[in-house]
């Protein structure tokens, strides 16, 4: 069973070797004429505004909301796949169950929509 994953692993390793090789040789192949301005953060030629160490510190909270909504719906999707594979075998029971499931998620979705969670300001 796991044997069928071996080719994927081989492709993974090949891609990893290629990518690691590229990023490793990059500094040695190219010229190295460093100066202070070149190594500063890019801000259209002006002096970079002072930043916390990495990543600029704060980020808009709306992105966290999107991430949480993604988890909600991604889990829904993950449950839909096994149902879809064996939908015919499950018959009417499966239909009722998945209808209830989609209705539950639909409720949460409608709630988020009405509360403005899907609006982007």
């Amino acid at each position, binding site marked *: 069973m796991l044997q069928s994953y071996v080719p994927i692993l081989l492709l993974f390793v090949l891609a990893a070797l290629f990518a690691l090789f590229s990023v490793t040789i990059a500094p040695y192949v190219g010229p190295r004429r460093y100066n202070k301005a070149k*190594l500063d953060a890019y801000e259209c030629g002006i002096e970079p505004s002072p930043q916390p160490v990495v990543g600029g510190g704060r980020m808009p909270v709306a992105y966290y909301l999107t991430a949480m909504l993604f988890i909600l719906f991604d889990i829904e999707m993950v449950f839909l796949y096994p149902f879809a594979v064996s939908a015919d075998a499950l018959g009417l029971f499966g239909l009722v169950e998945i209808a209830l499931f989609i209705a539950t998620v639909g409720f949460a979705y409608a709630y988020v929509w009405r509360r403005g969670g899907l609006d982007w300001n």
Partner: protein
Amino acid sequence: MSTAQLLANDPVWLTIVKVIAIFAFLVVMTLFMIWWERRVVARMQHRPGPNRVGPFGLLQSLADGLKLAFKEDIRPVLADRWVYFLAPVISTIPAFTAFSVIPLGGEVSIFGHHTALQLADLPVGVLVVLACSSLGVYGIVLSGWSSGSPYPLLGALRSAAQVISYEIAMGMSIVAVVLYSHSLSTSDIVTAQQSGWFVWLLFPSFAVYTISMVGETNRAPFDLPEAESELVGGFHTEYSSLKFALFFLSEYINMVTVSALATTMFLGGWRAPWPLSAVGGGVLNTGWWPLLWFVVKMLIFLFVYIWLRGTLPRYRYDQFMRLGWKVLVPISLVWIVLIVGIRAFKNSPNVSPQQVLIAVGVVVALILAVTFLLPTRPEPEDGRIELTGGGYPVPPIDLKVPQTPPRRRRTGVPGTQRQPAGVTAGEDSSASTASSKEASDGSV
């Protein structure tokens, strides 16, 4: 014999040959796509495009790639050393890996070995592609975060939000396909389309998938993460040399992969299109012919990518998120409920159409009722600028203009009696240069 059994009999050398072939195919496709895109967009804009290097300029992207390798590799001072180094690698690996489950053709014989033109046929094939495209987000987010610069960070956040938002619509459109093929394995999905392509049967799913695949790969008109006018270059602003090339490579490979998945799921995969499939009792569906059909179908999708880029302006971010969350997701949800109901009705004799309709109706009515019963968040009314002039922000007609400019009022000097520039001004300037010299000495 099923495809999975055929592939299980592959000797090791054959697997290695296939791995190298797919790797080379993806790299060549990337080089070709960059050239093709530049040529087609140029033609759409009435200019020739790259036509100097090699025949028709075909070697242009190869030359560009080589040139990138000999460019200076920069690591900004504020960058996180290891994450900055690894982010291009993290985004490249899943891009390559995702293509492994795509069936490029049926049964062929390579050096006397019977095998399928596919690297791996997993029972969860489609999930591998989805998982890899999710993992690719890590490369984008980490590259933006580790650069230590505001533009890449914003680009990375946008990109991540975009990819995960459209992945939901994408995943739901795949559910419909799985319902009809009874399998997540890509080769089974192709087999299920023997009698008819899913693009006709499941057109709404196809439309949702096609839109979300453009959003998923951050391409125009959804290329907000790299909106040049807002974010310079997006998440790879601080990258140069081969690291930048790797980001470019993974973006184009992702395009190729989602196009290949669209071909597999909706356009019958490697099967010949209708009039050709009837030729000679299906001889065009055997041997190496399928590879041709597959590549042609995939190139059609890739051409649509270029076409969109040459035609459409970029979306605004809130419009874009609204399209994803408020249009594509509800359409997919309702469509899934609909086809699940239709299938249950068709497959079980003891369910009448009335029962199915009632069940579907109850679900839809429940969702609608809930939607209208829930309270809306009140719009904030204060803090808005009063608009006049038919919606354009022009100043109101009864605008009170101050009689005297504030500066003159403060100094009390009337505008007509200006002091001539004289000795005092010269003294002032010399004093200021002296003080600035002192200040610079002090700072050193």
